[in-house]
């Protein structure tokens, strides 16, 4: 009965999606359906992007506590966006179509991810404490630089970058949805296609090399994919610190096997349920009294402490 958890999770996600689309709808369906469908698609896309990026990052870094957000991936995204606005200026940025800006930013993040995290992982793999410390320093540095630049630029220009600095699930940037979907689905397809390689990579540098994997190349490739996925989710909803950690840890509890063929879909389903179900509850039940990101980060943060204290880091 190994496929049972997947089936149950599918049903729950479907239920959440249907309720999200229909519950409390006022007015013409011809408006409600496309309006909500856009937001739902965005939520699901972000959910899958974050869970996949987290699984992949944990595989290449060889631990179960760190996630792209904790290591400052999305902070780097905001920093690069701010830097673009700062150096290009308001006029240039406004003239750029949002898609071009998004594409440029994604490209820069991929470059930054490989340069920074590629070397970091090569040097500190297996040294969890050093990695956490470096990640925290990176993330803080990126956020401080972002804040510094944001203070220096024109208030009008500030609007452009403000959206990339706060998590927001209520106003998903649906303009970017087509390009984001293509990038995200492409990246996920590649991750899924190489799921057996990731299983081998998870054994560590020596064992993977012995089995004939080009570890350095695979690590760089994985980081590129993580950068694409983080770009998509950050561009659509902004940074969410602990969602990835929460859903991937839950997925590991649901399924004890270490194979990516099972971990990736289960984490994606749990992530989708958390975001769609959470947004459903907050929009319809709690009438938007609390942003979803606050709840997710609170739960995820508690879970992070729990994992650290339990010492089950690897």
């Amino acid at each position: 009965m190994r496929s049972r958890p997947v089936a149950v999770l599918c049903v729950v996600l479907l239920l959440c999606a249907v309720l999200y689309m229909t519950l409390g709808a006022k007015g013409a369906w011809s408006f409600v359906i496309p309006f909500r469908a856009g937001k739902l698609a965005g939520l699901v896309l972000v959910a899958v992007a974050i869970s996949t990026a987290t699984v992949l990052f944990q595989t290449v870094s060889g631990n179960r506590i760190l996630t792209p957000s904790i290591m400052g991936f999305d902070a780097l995204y905001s920093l690069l966006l701010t830097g673009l606005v700062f150096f290009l200026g308001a006029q240039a940025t406004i003239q750029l179509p949002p898609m071009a800006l998004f594409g440029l930013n994604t490209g820069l993040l991929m470059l930054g991810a490989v340069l920074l995290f590629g070397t970091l992982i090569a040097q500190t793999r297996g040294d969890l404490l050093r990695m956490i410390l470096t990640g925290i320093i990176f993330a803080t540095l990126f956020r401080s630089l972002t804040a510094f630049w944001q203070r220096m630029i024109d208030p009008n220009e500030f609007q452009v970058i403000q959206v990339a600095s706060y998590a927001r699930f209520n106003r998903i940037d649906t303009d970017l949805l087509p390009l984001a979907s293509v990038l995200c689905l492409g990246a996920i397809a590649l991750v899924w296609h190489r799921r057996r390689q990731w299983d081998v990579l998870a054994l560590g540098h020596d064992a993977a090399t012995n089995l004939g994997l080009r570890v350095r190349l695979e690590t760089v490739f994985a980081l590129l994919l993580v950068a694409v996925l983080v770009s998509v989710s950050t561009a659509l909803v902004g940074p969410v610190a602990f969602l990835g950690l929460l859903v991937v840890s839950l997925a590991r509890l649901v399924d004890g096997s270490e194979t990516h063929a099972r971990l990736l879909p289960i984490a994606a389903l749990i992530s989708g349920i958390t975001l769609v179900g959470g947004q459903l509850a907050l929009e319809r039940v709690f009438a938007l009294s609390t942003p979803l990101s606050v709840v997710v980060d609170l739960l995820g943060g508690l879970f992070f402490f729990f994992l650290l204290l339990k010492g089950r880091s690897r």
Partner: protein
Amino acid sequence: MISIRNIDYDIAGKAILRDVSLDMPKHGVTALIGPNGAGKSTLLSLIARLLPLQHGRVTVDGHDIATCDTAALARILAILPQIQDAAPRLSVSDLVAFGRYPHSRGRLTDQDGAIIDAALAAFQLTDLRNRALDTLSGGQRQNALLAMIFAQGTDYLLLDEPLNNLDIAASRRLMAQLRGLADEQGRTVVIVLHDINYALAYADHLVVLAEGRVAAMGNPEEVVTDDLINRIYGTDAAVINHNNRRIVDVGP
């Protein structure tokens, strides 16, 4: 044949290996001995491309390890890796199944299944096949890793101090198994050993490393003498004859 030419290796400016050139014959058991810090593990890691070569050249059956396809090399040569706590919840049979990855890229065939079963049986793991790695003892985990590279089915097997976690019965069983691989299947085993007595009893060929250089090599019976032990290890243990076999007497 593994042939090593002019290898130098430095770590942080400190010389680990200096001008090492030697040939390890195909078929049979080659033991690598030497005092702590002589560079034995480094040499093994370089042959298995776990460390990048800094200077010199290594070929395995004529394949230059620096340039040949690493996936193809994984079907010729296997090294016993250290994975102390990676993937702790992996089951024993899943770990052993990774040994078939170089051949089937993760899509296991019936033939792979049979090889995995044989590897599990050879290392007394059949009853433990569904146990997670973190529930095993150190010796059992080592056996699981050995079964993995056994299933890899390579002509060359490199082992770095595999007797470390094993008691005398398990050590002798493993050495006899390696002997069998060499004698019955014509495989080549290169093994780093600390205990010279195991090298004397089981190896066909001996390489002695000291301070990053080859100090001696050849037939174990001829290489291991009172003088060598005194010179290399700086201790005066006597080499004695017992039932036509040489043994190092470790008594005072």
